[in-house]
């Protein structure tokens, strides 16, 4: 029996995407935890910042929102929302920013819906909306996306396009007028997807131990290329120890 949870696996898989030199934009919950794990495990010289305006917070305790006072303690600078949005758009710093996002729906090109299911004016389900998600997705060259692997979430067509991915595919972002880049990886509770360099369509890059590509396809509305998929290494004991003892000892996210 594996001695780690799926949530721990997802967090560590995301943390491995982050390198020293990266400036990481994290939201609430697992995305913040992944950034903290990267900083403590494999990317000590990565820098976290929050859309509320704090840069390189100390994070002795895990914040429960990006506005939590815990992001203000021993930060390099405490500013406001404008400062954060400048960091991610600045021609120099922006190209080093990696965003971490989540969504209710994703399409084959990594476009995201965090707004509504159903009709916009009178929706079946209303979600939080863009927040800074559309902004970071519009501006930065790389994004990690966390998703639950479910048919209703991996859809041909979004009910509402909140945050841009690769739009219609190859050249989609350029045609729309967005900054180059877009989503690089999608991490779910079963698998890791990446985007084809030319077509920008999602493909299966990896699956978790004990999961088959077939099981993953059964949990999506659209199909993807699975020919390049390989099993993903589970978290090492050392990664787990740091994640549990140092990043989230109160088990607020894990």
């Amino acid at each position, binding site marked *: 029996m594996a001695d780690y949870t799926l949530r721990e696996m997802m967090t560590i898989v995301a943390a491995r995407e982050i390198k020293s030199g990266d400036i990481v934009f994290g939201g609430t919950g697992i995305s913040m935890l992944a950034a903290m794990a990267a900083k403590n495990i494999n990317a000590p010289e990565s820098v976290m910042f929050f859309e509320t305006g704090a840069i390189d917070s100390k994070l002795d305790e895990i914040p429960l929102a990006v506005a939590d006072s*815990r992001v203000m303690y021993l930060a390099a600078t405490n500013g*406001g929302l404008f400062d954060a949005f400048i960091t991610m758009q600045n021609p120099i710093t922006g190209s080093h920013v990696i965003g971490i996002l989540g969504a209710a729906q994703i399409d084959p090109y990594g476009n995201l819906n965090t707004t509504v299911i159903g009709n*916009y004016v009178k929706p079946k389900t209303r*979600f*939080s*909306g*863009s927040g800074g998600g559309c902004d970071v997705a519009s501006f930065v060259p790389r994004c990690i996306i966390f998703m639950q692997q479910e048919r209703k979430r991996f859809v041909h067509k979004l009910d509402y396009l909140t945050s841009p991915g690769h739009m219609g595919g190859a050249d989609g972002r350029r045609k729309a*007028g967005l900054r180059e880049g877009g989503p690089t990886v999608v991490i779910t509770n079963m698998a890791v997807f990446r985007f084809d360099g030319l077509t920008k369509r999602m493909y299966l890059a990896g699956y978790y131990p004990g999961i088959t590509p077939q099981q993953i396809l059964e949990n999506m509305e659209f199909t993807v290329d699975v020919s390049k998929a390989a099993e993903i290494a589970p978290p090492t004991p050392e990664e787990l120890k740091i994640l549990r003892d140092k990043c989230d000892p109160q088990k607020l996210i894990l």
Partner: protein
Amino acid sequence: MNTKDNKVMSLREAIREYVRDGSHISIGGFTINRNPMAAVHEIIRQGIGNLYLYAHSNGQGADELIGGGCVSRLDIAYGGNGKYAATCIRFRKAVQEGTIRIEDYSNFQMCLRFMAGAMGMPFLPTVSSLGTDLVNVWGFSEAERAQDPRMPDKKVVVMENPFGGWMDTTKVVLVPAIRPDVTILHVQKADKQGTGRIEGLTFADVEQAKSARHVILTCEELVDTTALRRNPDQNNIPFIHVDAVVPVPYGAHPTACYGYYDYDPACLLHYVKCAKDDGLYREYLDKFIHGAKDHEAFIALNGGRERLDRIKADPETGYAVNLARG
């Protein structure tokens, strides 16, 4: 704009004077931090309705104003409240049931809109949201907008970069200025004239204040002007924008106030439980808002002094270390 020397008044008086039925308002703070909650509760208590609320991510405050029946129209970027509500519950319910009208923007766009208002510019540009439904889907039609002189005729406008390809940009989205009748902020320190000091992150409070016709500052501490002016570089709200100064200790509770107190997990969790059920929510409003004559009474109903001791900020970190937050 107000240069009076002494703007101190009671919260009841400040809300009655500056927030009316149909006012366009904005509130400071972000999700679970530094929302002007005492003022939000007083607006509900006074039964003020039909507000047009402009929000970026004003989680708890926005949700309570909506839940209290005060809001009819809403421009918003994010209706969530951190770990306490992935989507704010009364907000979700009101949108799904069609009891409020809504227009979605991004957080940066709302910041730009407040900044444009502060600058007296009709709009500001960004590339954020090009090609998305934030541009394509409108909550208020152009015809409807044309009939209301308080609304810009369009949600957004997309245009070619008039400077050619300058700054590697082909197109921009123009977002219209916001001019609230009143912005209400809760700050750590203010003097009687209205100079305000926000400690920790300022969020978009400063732009929101400068975009508004009137500003109400509630504050943890009313500080002597000389003391506040000894370090003017730490003051971020110029008094000339401010109309009312209201000392309200714990005025952001149950949201946090950096350096003073943490958010109150027990109160926020209780709120979430009530918000999920219409009957319980009515009881919440009756007992905790209408049943409390002021913010002190609200806190007394929420565990009083004992609870405040639990969330008291540690002077080193600015938050309550090891607080049970789950």
